[in-house]
């Protein structure tokens, strides 16, 4: 399946993060093309910065390129004190595809109308996934561009400007394994350095908070995903019910026909709204939680790097003590110790700044999204209410007429 998507139309901008609109460097992804498993993004940049050759240009990029950019940023020593924006997750078109497959199998049991609706629903879902994918990639770049330090990164500029395929090599098996191993080491290391006494209260608090928050938000994300999924199921059930009802009404030749029709109609409308509720919830709530889950992970990584630096500093202190004891290599040890201290101080300083701004950003984003979600839900609830009322009114009206007929048709004694 090949979906061409113009994101420009009806684009909802960066749901999950609130970015300062710096006009010096504006990045968006106006276009994306989905071919089998690969998604090709067109990254469009508008800039007033002189470091770029042109003020306005577009380049084709793939998901792997984004990952590469993220990894290089993480590995850059200078950025150790920064929260590196989380890498966008890999596009996942499996679940809608699987559903489509299932639908094809169950085609025989459905009416044509029902099938078409289900298909439309799935296509919409597919499109939503696609849009979401584009969005997270865009958000990643926008986060970078709005960051005072990261926006000046060399690799970032290459990523934006180089008009050929970056042809980033996919990680081979060894590297994959290496990454896995590195993670293991990191986890073990985290455990080891967690024993080191924290010197700064701010970081101590931040650490406990983030650890706690991360586990909670992860849980919430999973639950929210489940919730939205079952909400979608309910909406899908409405399709079947509506279709069955309308086929009943088609077969029916009596007075009830109209009622069934109306009810089918109502269910159809309800289905749409219910579907909207589900997708809004998905977009505003689940996506928000998901994004911040990743963002908090990034913040945690920063803390880890700082803790690592602290551990290094302590080690260098010890080394210095040892050197003094043996009165050997004192200058080197001193230098080492100074270096570590500097690094640690720098990390602490920028880390503090980053975390504070992160917190503010988080609160603002949550606030914005929750309010939007609430507004949407209210809107949907009102729409549904009106529809139900109308249906009810229609039915009640019909019943009233029926009653009047009875009254007039029966002779009084």
């Amino acid at each position: 399946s090949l979906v061409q998507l113009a994101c420009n139309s009806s684009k909802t901008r960066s749901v999950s993060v609130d970015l300062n609109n710096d006009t010096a460097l504006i990045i968006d992804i106006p276009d994306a093309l989905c071919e089998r498993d690969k998604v090709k993004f067109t990254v469009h940049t508008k800039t007033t910065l002189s470091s770029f050759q042109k003020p306005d240009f577009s380049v084709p990029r793939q998901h792997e390129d984004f990952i590469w950019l993220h990894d290089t940023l993480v590995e850059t020593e200078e950025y150790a004190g920064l929260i590196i924006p989380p890498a966008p997750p890999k596009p996942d078109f499996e679940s809608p595809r699987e559903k489509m497959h299932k639908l094809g199998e169950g085609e025989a049991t459905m009416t044509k109308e029902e099938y078409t609706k289900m298909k439309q629903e799935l296509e919409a879902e597919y499109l939503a996934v696609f849009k979401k994918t584009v969005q997270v990639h865009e958000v990643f770049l926008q986060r970078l561009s709005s960051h005072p330090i990261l926006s000046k990164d060399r690799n970032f500029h290459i990523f934006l400007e180089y008009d050929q395929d970056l042809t980033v090599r996919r990680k081979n098996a060894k590297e994959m394994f290496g990454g896995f191993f590195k993670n293991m080491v990191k986890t073990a290391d985290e455990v080891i350095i967690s024993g080191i006494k924290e010197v700064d209260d701010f970081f101590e608090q931040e650490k406990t908070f983030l650890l706690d928050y991360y586990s909670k938000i992860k849980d919430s994300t999973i639950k929210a995903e489940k919730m939205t999924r079952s909400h979608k199921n309910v909406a899908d059930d409405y399709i079947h019910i509506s279709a069955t009802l309308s086929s009943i009404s088609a077969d029916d030749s009596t007075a009830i026909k109209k009622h069934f029709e109306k009810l089918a109609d109502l269910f159809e409308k309800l289905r749409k709204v219910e579907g909207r509720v589900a997708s809004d919830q998905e977009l505003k709530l689940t996506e928000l939680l998901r994004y911040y889950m990743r963002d908090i992970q990034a913040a945690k990584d920063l803390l880890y790097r700082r803790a690592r630096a602290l551990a290094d500093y302590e080690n260098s202190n010890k080394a210095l003590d040892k050197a003094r004891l043996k009165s050997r290599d004192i200058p080197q040890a001193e230098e080492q110790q100074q270096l570590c201290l500097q690094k640690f101080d720098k990390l602490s300083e920028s880390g503090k700044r980053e975390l504070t701004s992160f917190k503010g950003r988080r609160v603002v984003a949550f606030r914005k999204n929750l309010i939007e979600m609430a507004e949407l839900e209210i809107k949907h609830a009102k729409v549904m209410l009106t529809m139900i009322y109308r249906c009810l009114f229609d039915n009640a009206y019909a019943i009233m007429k029926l009653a009047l007929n009875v009254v007039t048709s029966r002779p009084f004694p």
Partner: protein
Amino acid sequence: MSSPILETETKPAAAAVVKPLVEAAVETVAEPVAELVEEPLDEFDDLVDLSTDVPSVQATAAAAAESPLVEVEAETPSEEACEDFVDLSGSDSDSSQEETLLEVPADSAAASSDPQDVSTALPPGDVATGSAAHEQPGALLEVDIGQASANGEKQPLSEDLFFDPLANLADAGPPPTAAVKQPAPPPQQQQPPQPPLDLFEDDPNDLFGESRHAKSAKQQPPQPSSLFGEVDEDIFGEPLGAPAAKKAGNMASREQRETTVGTKTSGLGGGGAGAGAGFGDVGGPLNNNYEKEPADIFSEEAVTIAPTAAKAAAAASSSRTNGVHGAAEEGDIFAEATVELSLDSPRADRKKNTTAAKPSTSATTLSSAADLSKTHSASLEEVNSHVCIYIHVHISASTSIHTTLAMFRTKTFTVRRRFSDFLGLYEKLTEKHAPNGFIVPPPPEKSIMGMTKVKVGKEDSSSGEFVERRRAALERYLQRVVCHPSLLQDPDVREFLEKEELPRAVGTQALSGAGFLKMLNKATDAVSKMTIKMNESDVWFEEKLQEVEAADQQFRKLHGMVESLVVHRKELSLNTACFSKSVAMLGSSEDNTALSRALSQLAEVEDKMEQLHQEQASCDSFSFAELIADYIRLLGSVRGSFDHRMKAWQRWQDAQTMLQKKRESEAKLLWANKPDKLQQAKDDIAEWEAKVTQYEGDFDRVSSTVRKEVVRFEKEKVKNFKRQIIKYLEAQLKAQQQVSLCSDGV
């Protein structure tokens, strides 16, 4: 005690009435309900007036105030099957004497906390809600509002206590059902107090003037065969006694509201339903609507039955238009035609609060049932290691009006029946009536799974739901039976309703020898059905048969869909609950206070949403899926009657062939000139001619029955679907409320 409510009752806004009730309420759960009431009035004033009975809350509140017909029974069986009764009987506002029976048998665990809610003699709403607050498992509370004196005896509810206030009914408006008792109702009651369209806004004052009238009228005619006490019982008992067809998963507050009003009409069958309908409408604050509907249906059915056509029509029109109090009287007039009947739920809720508030009140309205009332609540307990679901059949037939109902000895009586008795009744009825083309309403199917669950899983909430489901199904079944004019005449039906002890029904076990025989019969029937080739003479039947077949298919499909919807909704509810908890946790660890508050608010909202989803799920399953299941079974019966019609046709054809043969042989005899045998041949011909005519008649009868049945079928469908929509409406109202709460929080 009722003054705050009386003050507000004249205000047009229903919310105003509900508010005081709710504000005073102990439980905050009730709050959304009040808001719900406000909401529709604000936004959809006319619509609501027309269709959702919200205004009737007003009347209800008033009714509750003047004559507190409020009975709440909350039961939760204790581990050892001993119940605590707390009975606050509704006291008249006039009658100062108040007595309460606090029954605290062996298990007094709950007793200590019960009285404090109960004895405070709050306005009805309060007590009701207060009792909702009781969450002791293992306590059976029967709460009738208002009276407060504890007596610790271990006796079942004595009904005189309950009806005491009724003796001095003089000022308190008795429920409109009083009119049932009138052989010659005064003119006002013969026509609706207001033109049908105005009926939507029942004015409380009007209402009470009316019912007062009814009361006085009631006392004039001598009551033929009954004690005065019984009359009162009836009056009082009918609105009260109808048990709510309660959904297990209902929110406590809702239930409380329903029970507070004390107008369960789902239990009222037949003509009594007319009255019940009126009253039910009054009573249904929000969610009662759907409960009330069955009554409507049956009042409509009564229309088809009742000979007094005009009145019936008027009543039907008003009850159809939903929420007409004045119609109650009309309904009563033709209440004669049928039997009011309700099933009291055994309520096997060995579980907590939410389902606990179920009113099983009919028992308390009956003097004869007084001692039963206790056992019935425990009826789910083992009897001979076999779990019996005893269903209370509450009949109140008004002998004074309709002669056909003189067949019932007393007006109100209660019997206990096992599930297999219902099946036995069906067997008998099918045997007798099905060949005549009547559509015998089928009882719910045996569910070995569900039953086993009930037997095994004591603490399972689904078993309570199962019992409730079955109770409702059986009730609908019985109502269908008694609404059938011919079936009602059947001695078996009467015996079933009246007789204290029924011989154990045999052959209803699915796995017994009789069951096997039945299966064999069915198989042979199916074979013969295939072999009979009927060239259909009547196009109508051909079409109908096709229609029924198609409808059967469609309904089956729809049923499957709705079931899956229920499953998904339950899933959704579960997931929402998880999410709510999770968000609450997240909120607790959030360090930004505003955000933390918003998150916990969100958690709260999600929590409510969860309840809402659950409610919707049970609403789907109870009022939608169950209905469809009913119709699938009914369609089966319809098909059965088609088959019988076909058989009748076959007999007719056979007879005709035989007649032909006889005629031929007569001709032969004539030709052979054998006069001795000629006479016999002529007799044969005459006999077969008679048979042909008879079979033809049978055939016609079947046709008319089927036609009639189809009409009823459709009417019922209209009602039921309306009910469903109302249900959705309420649910969405709630959703909207809660969501706006969410936005406030953020």
